[in-house]
């Protein structure tokens, strides 16, 4: 059985509080593999020569679920991993990743996950990644994820990346390239508070005819935190891309959104929408007329916005 701290972290990032009873998993703790299981259709093997794992999902396997959480419970850990995912043709899989840091010391703890996805023809991947930090130490909690996605013909990848609490500094690099008929959906939700900083760079290259991409980013910046978004969509074929960034700004926070859309084909359709603003006053007033205080009303609005 696990200690409270560990299961708490797992709950926050992977909705599990213990070792999963079914499906493949790899749990990494304080820079080392702690528990691992492969199944008939999902093979997880450690890399040789560098930290990290290879995850291979068998072609045409259906509805598998893979948990690969990373937890850091010590101060001063600097963890770098390379995880590669090979998703076989026609497979259907859900991957629950995520990183939780508990830092009660004074040194920085950092996890840099470098994830590469090779998604086979017609395969379907749902990827959920939650980032979470806690602990009363002064040491920073740092997460710098790099994600690289390669989608073959007609592959579908839905990615949900969430960072709601406790991460002091984050730099997220996401790149993707899409072959014909491939579809990518990225839903990014972010909340920063205190003096946190977060930067997210995304580059999507739509190379195949009929490929589509949708990036939805919703963020809330509180206190004196700072956020920068740099989404880029490049259409190299007849394709559709839609980038939507909505941010709520509060207190003394700062948000920058630098969208870039580029078309290198006359049938590339790329749309970008971005908005930064305060919480809508009418919404606040409406909830207050139901008896909520101003801060309760704010919390309800933010919760819905980030849902």
């Amino acid at each position, binding site marked *: 059985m696990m200690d409270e701290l560990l299961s708490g972290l797992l709950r926050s990032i992977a909705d599990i509080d213990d070792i999963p009873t079914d499906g493949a998993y790899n749990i990494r703790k304080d820079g080392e593999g702690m528990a691992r299981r492969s199944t008939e259709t999902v093979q997880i093997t450690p890399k040789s020569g560098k930290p990290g794992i290879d995850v291979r999902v068998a072609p045409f396997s259906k509805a598998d679920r893979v948990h690969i959480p990373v937890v850091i419970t010590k101060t001063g850990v600097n963890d770098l991993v390379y995880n590669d995912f090979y998703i076989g043709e026609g497979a259907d899989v859900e991957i629950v990743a995520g990183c939780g840091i508990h830092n009660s010391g004074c040194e920085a703890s950092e996890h840099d996950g470098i994830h590469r996805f090779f998604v086979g023809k017609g395969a379907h991947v749902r990827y959920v990644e939650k980032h979470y930090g806690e602990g009363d130490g002064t040491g920073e909690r740092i997460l710098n994820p790099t994600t690289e996605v390669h989608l073959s013909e007609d592959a579908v990848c839905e990615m949900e990346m969430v960072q709601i609490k406790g991460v002091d500094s984050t730099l997220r690099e996401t790149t993707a390239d899409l072959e014909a008929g491939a579809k990518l959906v990225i839903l990014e939700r972010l909340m920063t508070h205190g003096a946190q900083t977060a930067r997210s760079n995304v580059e999507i290259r739509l190379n195949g005819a009929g490929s589509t991409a949708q990036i939805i980013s919703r963020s809330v910046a509180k206190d004196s935190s700072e956020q920068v978004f740099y989404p880029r969509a490049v259409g190299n074929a007849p394709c559709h891309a839609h980038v939507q960034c909505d941010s709520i700004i509060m207190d003394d926070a700062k948000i920058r959104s630098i969208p870039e859309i580029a078309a290198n084909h006359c049938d590339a359709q790329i749309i970008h929408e971005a908005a930064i603003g305060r919480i809508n006053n009418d919404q606040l007033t409406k909830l207050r*007329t*139901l008896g*909520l205080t*101003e801060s309760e009303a704010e919390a309800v609005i933010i919760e819905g916005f980030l*849902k």
Partner: protein
Amino acid sequence: MLELKHVSFQVGDAHAQAEILRDVSFTLKDGKFFVITGPNGGGKSTLARLIMGIEKPTAGQILLNGRDVTDLDVTERARCGIGYAFQQPPRFKGLTVRRLLSLAHGSDLPEDACCAYLTNVGLCSRDYLNREVDASLSGGEVKRIEIATLMARDLEVAIFDEPEAGIDLWSFSMLVQSFKNLSRGRHKSVILISHQERIMQLADEILVVADGQVRARGSRDEMLPRLLGQFEEDCGFRAKEVTAQ
């Protein structure tokens, strides 16, 4: 019981001032159903916002059950039992109809209770419970959900601002029936802002607000014929003929 005593509301600064409401006084007794009517821009919604505490009067007092609530903010007034269904309700990303009704009620509402409130405003409840109150809802749907949130509360004074606006003919009868039940049900007293004769038919009393003032007030039987006949005179409001030059 709600009392307004010489309530005025001005906007603007020292250079440019506008008086939106001027010396409004009235008393609304418990168990009464009040309809406020009058021309567009007359000050009806402003009056509702003042009672709810969204705006502060520049003069006068507002009393609820004898207690001066003039200086209470919106949250405090809501907790005293004042409720206001907006003329133009805001929309919320990510907030479901069910959650909104529960927030209004003050505690988690079971599914069948939510359904009952929605049915009362003519919405087929199963389809709506888990929908978000966002831009995907039509104007009439948002309006009806707004009415349902007020129905989910126990209030001293419930104010509905043009609840019938944007609601189709078929649902309208249903709504009228719901308001009929309401006047004997949860809320001690009801203020309904409306331009509709069929809603005015429900009123114990009718108040005409025009040009920032109470222009007339009386029982339904006394007021309705006057309103239908001589509205123009009461309000100093007369259609002018447009002649082509």
